[in-house]
């Protein structure tokens, strides 16, 4: 496979994952804004931080309002990480790697782009917002479905999946890091049930409320939430889950090509850390510290994969 193609596949699926995560984040922000009594816009501030676009937003706006944030995250052309730009970038990458994709996957991503381009052509009203957010998630899920259902399990598939999980690990880690203070043991005194708005944000933003209830029932506290999102290998958006997948996909490439590269060592190191850590250890070293290190290593791994597999010259 061409190095460029490997890069295009990885980025195609990174961008799709990013678009989907953004939709979930907007959905959460909107829900908090509608259901919380204080109606403050502070939740939108943290949404902007989670999407790593606070500074860029403030460079274009005087104040933070729900409307403006939603528009910024979904469709602003000057926000390179808006859903619309992500989907366009995903499709652009898909076009460059068209020969590596099945017709089904290509058509799914092309249709994803056509649908969302129309849905996001103009400002989305509050009334339309749930429908549009649903479309974003459905279109993205559809692409994933065609990938699972029609693609050969070879190096092409591995690079596509690496893109998904590098991006997802990054998104979950950033989400946690923006809210890490609400998970500190000292915050437990505020309320031990799931009525803490911040905890709800955390779980909803990863579509995790239902799964969390299933696992933890009524026994819910910050340590459980942190463990669930960092260390629970069953939770498909946890750091542990993402790295199990990354480890598997890199392992396939290792066996397929018969060459072990620096990215394999780096990935093993991160995987081992997640295997061995307990949530108590993490709180002891400091949650924020742990997440910052993780985010940095995740970025470093992405860069190492790019070098090892010759995405560019």
């Amino acid at each position: 496979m061409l190095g460029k193609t490997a890069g295009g596949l990885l980025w195609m699926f990174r961008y799709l994952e990013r678009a989907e995560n953004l939709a979930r984040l907007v959905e959460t922000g909107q829900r908090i804004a509608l259901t919380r009594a204080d109606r403050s816009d502070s939740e939108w501030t943290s949404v902007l931080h989670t999407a790593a676009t606070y500074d860029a937003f403030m460079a274009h706006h005087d104040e933070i309002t729900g409307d403006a944030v939603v528009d910024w995250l979904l469709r602003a052309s000057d926000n390179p990480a808006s859903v619309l730009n992500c989907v366009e970038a995903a499709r652009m990458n898909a076009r460059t790697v068209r020969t590596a994709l099945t017709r089904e996957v290509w058509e799914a991503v092309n249709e994803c782009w056509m649908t969302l381009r129309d849905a996001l052509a103009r400002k989305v009203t509050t009334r339309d917002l749930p429908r549009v957010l649903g479309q974003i998630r459905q279109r993205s899920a559809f692409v994933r479905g065609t990938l699972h259902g029609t693609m050969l399990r070879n190096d092409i598939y591995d690079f596509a999946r690496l893109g998904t999980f590098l991006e997802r690990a990054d998104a979950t880690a950033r989400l946690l890091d923006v809210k890490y203070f609400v998970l500190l043991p000292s915050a437990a005194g505020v309320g031990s049930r799931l009525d803490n708005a911040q905890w709800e944000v955390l779980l909803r933003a990863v579509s995790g409320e239902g799964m969390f209830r299933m696992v933890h029932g009524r026994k819910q506290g910050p340590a459980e939430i942190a463990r669930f999102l960092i260390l629970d290998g069953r939770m498909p958006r946890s750091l542990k889950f993402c790295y199990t997948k990354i480890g598997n996909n890199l392992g396939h490439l290792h066996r397929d090509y018969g060459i072990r590269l620096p990215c394999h060592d780096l990935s093993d190191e991160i995987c081992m850390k997640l295997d061995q850590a307990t949530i108590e250890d993490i709180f002891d070293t400091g949650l924020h510290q742990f997440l910052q290190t993780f985010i940095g290593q995740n970025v470093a791994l992405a860069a190492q994969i790019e070098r090892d597999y010759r995405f560019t010259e």
Partner: protein
Amino acid sequence: MTSQNPFDEMTLADGSIREAYQTFADWFAAEDPTRLRAKAREAEDVFRLTGITFNVYGDPDASERLIPFDIVPRIIAAREWAKLSKGIEQRVRALNAFLHDIHHRQEIVRAGRLPVEMIARNDAFLNQMIGVSPPGDIYTHIVGIDLVRTGPDQFYVLEDNARTPSGVSYMLENRETMLHMFPELFQQNKVQRVSRYPQTLHSSLAACAPLACDGDPVVAVLTPGIHNSAYYEHSFLADQMGVELVEGHDLRVVDGRVAMRTTQGYKAIDVLYRRVDDDFLDPLNFRPDSQLGVPGIFDVYRAGGITIANAPGTGVADDKAIYSYMPDIVEFYTGEKPLLENVPTWRCSEPDALAHVLDNLSELVVKEVHGSGGYGMLIGPAASKKELRAFRKKLEARPSNYIAQPTLALSTAPIFTKKGLSPRHLDLRPFVLVSPEGIEITPGGLTRVALKKGSLVVNSSQGGGTKDTWVLEE
């Protein structure tokens, strides 16, 4: 603007249906127009979803456009095709012999059959190609011969595309779309299939592998990139052949071979089907500012390290002044009378011809010798007085830059419109593959049709559409 009654390929002057169209005509008469309209829209959706688009330069809002597709097939009878394909094969053999000769001993010039300046002053001629003999002496591997028709048995070659004929992906997708929408039509009519083209292309290219190749030849398609107007076709062909689609920056010269950067290091390419123009192929040998090519690829080529298809310099044969010599060229190299006719052509470089052209400008079609895509051409009968005056000046300033031809009464075939079937002018580009193993012509080709009533311009860049083209079985 054209003669009063151009030949219609479906309906004769007395209203009767020509034989090849009879089954289709019966089917059409029984169809509900509303259903057909819905089908036509459905076809458009299929094209959009598949991404069968072409890019329009300098228009960001419409950077990917669909070429309009007409649901009425263009139907050619088996015996008509048998005759045409013999003529095409003859012409393509002559083209390759000609391209070999002009890069070697130039016998045709020595024999006084072609003036030397036709080659010496031809912008597409590459001195670097002198003495180069590609594997099998094949210069143009993929050829498109543009044909027009004026009567039941009257076909003309309008131009030769020996450089980089495009459009084959539309031929294939048009057929797929028709099979999808109207399967019953293919039960009622026995249509020769076109779907083997990509496999034939692959084996035809592989058969031209260079000496340096050891083992199964590695084929790749070279594209200028995602913004090129024919990018869809490049990716389509690579996909259908199951080979890599590469850009210049994926390639470099490694150990005397051209190699592509893969996830496992550099891997040598044996045959490169390039869709990048000669000028941009190699910044060390041609345009130094090119970002699209591979530095040093031409040196590897000359040394037999890679086969480039089509060979650099084949554009010589696309020149419209050369075209005017094609009957001589065919005869010179094949020793046979040309089976396909040329359109009578005046070379404006010759004073007598120029005088005739200037006197009859309003009745002629005038073309630039290096032009393509329907640009820079004058259709006398359709031009205003002002346009004629402006063109006359250009012609007088640089006569050798032009050739002129009579305005042909191009045949028509029906398209499906809101008011039912309506005749439109069309042409045909059959695709030909050449390898040491032989010449393969896909039955049919790409039919381009002028969608505007009376218009003679079929180019997609200027509002033309396409049709599925059927060659019926015997």
